[in-house]
């Protein structure tokens, strides 16, 4: 009886209206949505900070940077003043982690391939650095960036 049912479904499967095939599951596990950087208050000042982000997944996947507004990847302060911003993304699960700081321009186009197959939780280390220029005084204050980290298939 069971064999007849299997045979029946095997025969009608190609006739069904459509076939859906799905792959993989992922979850950002935080821990946080934000990274606080020190106040800029002098010329030639370098500020930096870093954040560990956990990604749970059951298939190799990619992490890309999705800039949500123009210039969102550049540290921007009072009156729209900007400072040179660079990033470094590392982690044992990343196929080609950054070996050095990556400029904000290059960071926007980066693709980080998570090579582990899973199911597993991998840690991604995101470091951010801002440098105020040596010969030019910028408005004193807090400089911020805003972008999305998007995990893709």
């Amino acid at each position, binding site marked *: 009886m069971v064999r007849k049912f299997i045979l029946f479904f095997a025969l009608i499967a190609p006739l069904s*209206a*459509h*076939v*859906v*095939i*799905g*792959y*993989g*599951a*992922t*979850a*950002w*596990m*935080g*821990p*946080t*949505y*934000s*990274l*606080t*950087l020190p*106040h800029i208050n002098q010329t030639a000042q370098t500020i930096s*900070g870093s*954040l560990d*982000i956990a990604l*749970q*997944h059951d*298939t*190799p*996947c*990619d992490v*890309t940077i*999705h800039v*949500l507004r123009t210039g969102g990847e550049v540290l921007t302060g009072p009156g729209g003043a900007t400072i040179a911003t660079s990033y470094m993304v590392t982690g044992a699960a990343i*196929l080609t982690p950054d*070996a*050095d700081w990556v400029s904000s321009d290059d960071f926007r*186009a*980066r*693709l980080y*391939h998570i*090579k582990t*197959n899973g199911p597993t939780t991998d840690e991604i280390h*995101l470091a*951010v650095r801002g440098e105020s220029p040596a010969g030019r005084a910028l408005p004193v204050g*807090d*400089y*911020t*960036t*805003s*972008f*999305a*980290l*998007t*995990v*893709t*298939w």
Partner: protein
Amino acid sequence: MKNCRCYFLSPLFLAASLLLLMPAQPVHAGLAVSPLKQEISLRPGEPGKVVINILNRVHDAADVSVSANLSIVDFAVHTSGGLEFQNPGTQKNSASKWITLPDKQVTLEPGKAVALELTVTPPIQTPPGEYYSAVIVSLVSRARTNKGVQIQYEIASGVFVTVLGQSFPKQAKITSMAVQWPAPPATQPAGAKPPELEPAKVVVVLHNTGAARFTATGKMRILGANGRVVMTAVLTSTRPCVFGGDSRTFTAPLTKALPPGAYTVKVDLDYESTWTKAYQTLALELTPDQSALLARLKDSQGTTAVGVVISPLKFMPAISAGAARSLGLSLKSCSDVPVRCMLSVASTGNTDIENWISLGATDLSLAPSAHKSIEIKITVPSDAKTDTYPATLTVESWPEGSEVRRTEIPLEIQVRGGRN
């Protein structure tokens, strides 16, 4: 005199002010989305359903409800394999306008899940072909900072729609091929750790000239001036699936120290066509500086294969001149994905013994946990001198989604009873 409404003294204002003055507290992200990609085949005008599951995973007792916004976007794939998200309907192969979301925002209590059923309806006049879209699930942040970096977490779930009615052949060609040498490292301060050397690599761009997507795999061979293979490597890409009309970069690292001289680099890429592959050849003149760089790069690279357990790790067969002997090389997958393996052999002594050796397989795929035994047949010519002849058997293993690693297995053939 008008009544002065002192809003700043109201309890609501004070509470809001206190909230603003509090430092941003770490808040856990944590929505799981599945699947990451799904494919559906439909006829024009026929509605279909795809489901995206969203779950608020439980971490600890402090978990809170999490909200996420959902949107449908187009995407373009760059030659590097990176994705760029764009407004719906802007790409020529967009399926975004055909997809209906049941909700634009979901809020889930800890441990709760929702299955969102999306309706996909290609318009009746849609030509047969492949169309794409992505559903972006953006976690709504509860913590804000005005002192640094604000991160939005997103998960993109791809929806690949095939509109039935015509099948398209897989077509491709290689549009460029070059050897890319690493830039010289910047001067380091005294005592600083030297930066890791980027490998030299062969870079090939494959263009999908057809309308059907394919997943390409390929290999590269370097031949010496005498026509003998001196190195083989697998060509990989961060995104080997190439859509119709797109191009993709595939690379293979140069992992062998080669002496200066003239070489020929040959590549072939299998793009799932039933009758041909894409081929390209490149002449390479290796300078003494480049040769020295390859030697330095080889020293800085590991030699352990991943994804497979190989045994034995050394062969020392004793064979009489004029006789033949078969050896067995065991490859066992220890990966939970398919592992591609490529085998090659090269003489390392003064005598060319590559034509003494034949391999039972040079390019194979191991299923998860599978085991294969490869025959290595050695036929010693009758005029061979009594001596030891060294060679190296190289196994390159490539678990799907990972980088290629090499294992070099010494092979020392001890010829007995030969000429003295």
